[in-house]
């Protein structure tokens, strides 16, 4: 259970490990996009962790990275195919960032360093959910600021002028930076760039 909790909070991929920043900044213009990419990433990560756990010990050291990427390419291509067929609108909204998950350091590390299968799966599950949580949070904040809506529902109208910069990538960077600073403030951490 420790692995699961770690992924959610103590080692949250975006807020603590600073992984998966590209999707966190680029995709989360609406809460729905954040939720969809978060869930897809979590599922892909879970499967990748299981495959990597079974496969990686038999791969020579200098080919490990390539094999991890290949596993992710297959999974992500499959996920993209399913999404395009089921919900083309959402696939268009996520754009290149769903396929791009195959090269994300966060997913490449799925199941890394865990000896047993349950531990690897729990770790991936926690990390995936932690990632999805942050994406939804960012999506809600940015959609609210940018359009005054949350999950497409109008929350305020007229009172707050839409702040369209929140929907752009640079605006996303600033909002994510402020969120990270807030997390640092609450957890009394901060100071060094974590890597």
């Amino acid at each position: 259970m420790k692995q699961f909790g770690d992924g959610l909070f103590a080692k949250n991929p975006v807020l603590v490990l600073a992984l998966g920043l590209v999707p966190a900044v680029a995709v989360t213009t609406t809460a729905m996009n954040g939720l969809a990419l978060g869930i897809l990433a979590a599922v892909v990560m879970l499967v990748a962790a299981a495959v990597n756990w079974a496969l990686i010990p038999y791969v020579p050291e200098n080919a490990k990275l390539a094999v991890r990427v290949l596993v992710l390419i297959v999974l992500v291509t499959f996920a993209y195919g399913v999404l395009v067929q089921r919900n083309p609108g959402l696939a268009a909204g996520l754009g290149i960032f769903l396929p791009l998950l195959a090269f994300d350091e966060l997913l490449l590390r799925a199941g890394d360093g865990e000896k047993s299968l349950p531990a690897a799966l729990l770790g991936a599950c926690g990390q995936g959910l932690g990632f999805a949580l942050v994406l939804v949070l960012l999506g809600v904040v940015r959609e609210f600021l940018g359009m005054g809506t949350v999950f497409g529902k109008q929350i305020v109208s007229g009172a707050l002028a839409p702040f369209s910069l929140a929907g752009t990538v640079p605006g996303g960077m600033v909002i994510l930076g402020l969120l990270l600073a807030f997390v640092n403030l609450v957890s009394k951490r901060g100071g060094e760039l974590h890597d």
Partner: protein
Amino acid sequence: MTDGLQILAQTVISSNLILVQGLGLYALTRYTKSVREAAGAGVKTLAGMLIGSILLWLLSPIVPSSPAPQVGFYLLVGLVASLAASKLVMCETSGTDQAVDGALVGLLLLLGRGNTVGFQNVWTAFGAGLGFLLVLVVVATVRRRLDLAPIPKPLRGLPILLITVGLLGMALLGFRF
């Protein structure tokens, strides 16, 4: 000629890969501790982008037409290009052996969605790589100044870096080419 310059201006400035498209944040946070390291990582990515776009140009007759296999194809080309680039350009990047490059693959996927073909893609890739290299070097220089600045403790490190880069990006949003 004007077309070429326009593409260069677009890829370096108004649709800069890092600042405006949000790709390559991993490199931005990891490889900008010194200008030297940033330049090395930038050159490596630039080489990868050139290799990838040339590969796409050569392989254009066999690109699958249905969406999912097409995406898989671009991802594979991206993997080959980034491995080739890391073999070709030897440079010391601290931390992990990050041989695969998210920004490079993102660029290939963007090229795949555009309607341009052939040599124009290689030129676009060159511009995008140049913009990428430029931003890494600029950010590495900015970080040296940030190290000296009196920043409140919670903002130190990644938060202030992201906010700074965001402000740089907002400045570029004003340009239209």
